[in-house]
């Protein structure tokens, strides 16, 4: 199967919400590309639009107050299919995508399972919504799914209620439920944030393992750079609803170009280094209702604060190096005319061949 054709291309996506202070753009001009068997990490602070981007893919942004302002989310379930725009599907069509082609897991495994049903009941429901199988077969699929996520005594766990399981177990169940229909893309919205560190590591390892075995793609939403380094192939850094830097995990980690990305790295504790205080990025995330003019990061930017261009013109992400986009007027090669606008379509070929 060809890995060269993207399975998902988000093009100039913009999502707005109406709030007390009028319409605010939660996501602005976002371009992303996901290839088969790739892990894309979307990194950013709370409220930067990473979850909204993921929810848009399944048309799960509540409308109202949300609204898709512009853009397309082209999705190709099978390599031979013509891509469809997920945003134009009707309720029935998008329902057959949800859970079946694209699945999602959430941050809070403690509350993501319905307390009145047994675990088995819920996995069976997810299976039988998309597959016409009899109960016996469905139970077998569910047991297999639980085995797949490393749950011991699966036949018995099926009869248990969510309150009888620990957080790690519940997240495993959620993953089993999400993967029971063999989706091609898994949206993982901070899947480990609510878990203990040891369980986090297990869950991430599980995701990697499942990805390798099933050949699915993962969009990993997180604010934990450690998680990104270990799991992602490609990284998109979001700030205030826009992508500010986008590139392979090696490029982003070895050569971060945007001051915000650099700030994120600087604020990470380093093992073995004794420091009294961690670095912080000065200031706060701007209120979406009141983004500063120009580059929305400029009031917090320590590097080039006084440049009038930063406070008047908003930089678009440009490809300043091979496969490395950045939206900053002061990034090297940003202004010299060699950087190309492009559609931020991260190209597969440049990646080191895997497996």
């Amino acid at each position, binding site marked *: 199967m060809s890995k060269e054709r993207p399975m998902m291309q988000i093009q100039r996506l913009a999502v707005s919400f109406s709030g007390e202070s009028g319409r605010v753009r939660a996501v602005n001009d976002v371009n992303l590309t996901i290839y088969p068997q790739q892990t894309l990490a979307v990194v950013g602070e709370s409220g930067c639009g990473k979850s909204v981007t993921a929810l848009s893919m*399944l048309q*799960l942004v509540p409308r*109202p107050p949300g609204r898709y302002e512009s853009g397309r989310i082209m999705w190709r379930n099978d390599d031979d299919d013509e891509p469809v725009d997920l945003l134009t599907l009707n*309720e029935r069509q998008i*329902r*057959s*995508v*949800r*859970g*079946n082609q694209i*699945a*999602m897991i*959430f941050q*809070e495994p403690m*509350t*993501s*399972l*319905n*307390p*009145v*049903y*047994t675990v088995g009941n819920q996995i069976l*429901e*997810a299976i039988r*919504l*998309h597959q016409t199988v009899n109960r016996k077969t469905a139970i077998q699929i569910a047991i297999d799914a639980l085995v797949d*996520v*490393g*749950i*011991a005594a699966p036949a*018995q766990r099926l*009869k*248990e*209620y969510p309150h*009888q399981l*620990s957080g*790690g*177990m519940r997240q*495993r169940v*959620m993953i089993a*439920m*999400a993967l029971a*229909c063999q989706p091609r893309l898994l949206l993982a919205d901070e899947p480990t944030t609510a878990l203990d560190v*040891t*369980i986090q590591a*297990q869950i991430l*390892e*599980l995701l990697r*393992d499942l990805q390798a075995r099933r050949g699915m793609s993962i969009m990993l939403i997180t604010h934990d750079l450690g998680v990104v380094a270990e799991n992602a192939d490609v990284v998109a850094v979001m700030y205030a609803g826009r992508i500010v830097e986008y590139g392979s995990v090696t490029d982003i980690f070895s050569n971060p170009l945007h001051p915000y990305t650099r700030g994120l790295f600087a604020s990470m504790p380093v093992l073995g280094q004794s420091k009294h205080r961690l670095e912080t990025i000065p200031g706060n995330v701007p209120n979406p209702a009141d983004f500063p003019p120009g580059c929305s990061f400029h009031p917090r930017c320590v590097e080039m604060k006084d440049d009038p261009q930063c406070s008047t013109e908003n930089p678009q992400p440009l490809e300043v190096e091979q496969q490395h986009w950045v939206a900053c007027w002061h990034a090297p090669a940003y202004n010299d005319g060699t950087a190309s606008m492009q559609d931020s379509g991260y190209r597969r070929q440049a990646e080191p061949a895997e497996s």
Partner: protein
Amino acid sequence: MTSTDTDTPLRSPIPAKGRSLWTDAWLRFRRRKLAMAMLWIIGLYALLAAIVFSGLIAADWDQPVVTSEFYERPAWSRLVVADAQGNALTKNEQYRKIAPELWFGTDIFGQSVLRKTLYGARISLTVALLASLLSIAIGVPMGAIAGYCGGLVDEIIVWLYSTLSSIPGFLLILAFAFVLRERLPGITAVYVALGVTSWVGLCRLIRGEVLKHKNRDYVAAAKVYGASQSRIILRHIVPNVSHLILTDFSLRFVGFIHAEVILSYLGLGPKEEPSWGTMINEAKLELTRNPSVWWQLAAATAAVLFLSLALNIAGDAMRDALDPKLKHVA
């Protein structure tokens, strides 16, 4: 592959089979002796009503049981002390000689008050049950739809029930009962009038709960695996608020029994058959007689009293049992 959960050793090895929230609640409820006793009383009432329905007892309530006298006093207040031969009877024998239909005396037509009371259970329980079911059938779907869909649908439903609830409740019931009794036979008018006027509280309750639940993560999870709106409402949210429907039901049921009594007292109840309300209605004339006739009133009141007491106590215990926050209190 994966190391089989590190959390397994930490878990207690005991719970072999999952216990649902309902089972849990039932186990908590069962610990309450008083509530259990009340549940038995409710069961007894239901059983009596069922037997009356089957026609095994009290079907002949309209036949006079005495010919000699109107308003026969309750038999235990005038025991026969000697048999036909003039031999004195022991207390035990005296009590045993009383015909059961005379235990509570008779009314003006010589009809047995006991039989009428039993027959009244049938009417009262039927009315209360059907009215409750009707108001659940209206209130729950309306509340769930309003809460889940929001927007214009929500506004219309809220407007509807606000309008309805701004009319003084009992006047509304009276108006409905008055209009309906011309069109619907017997007790149907009563329970329809009660049902269609009293779903507002439940609807409002369910709407609020659904509003709360629709943003829960498990609903988001269900959406993500492709469940339709109706499936999410019916299979995911409603079961999570169903305990409220049940507790509301127990309290509502009492209210309907009282409402039926009041409607009957006001002459809007069932016309041809005795109910506790019509019995109390008759009693208002009987009490003014000299000597006053109190037994019909006493029998009907006692019947209402014990049932509402039992329902209230059991309902209260049920609410506690179903509230996970009070798990360790009882």
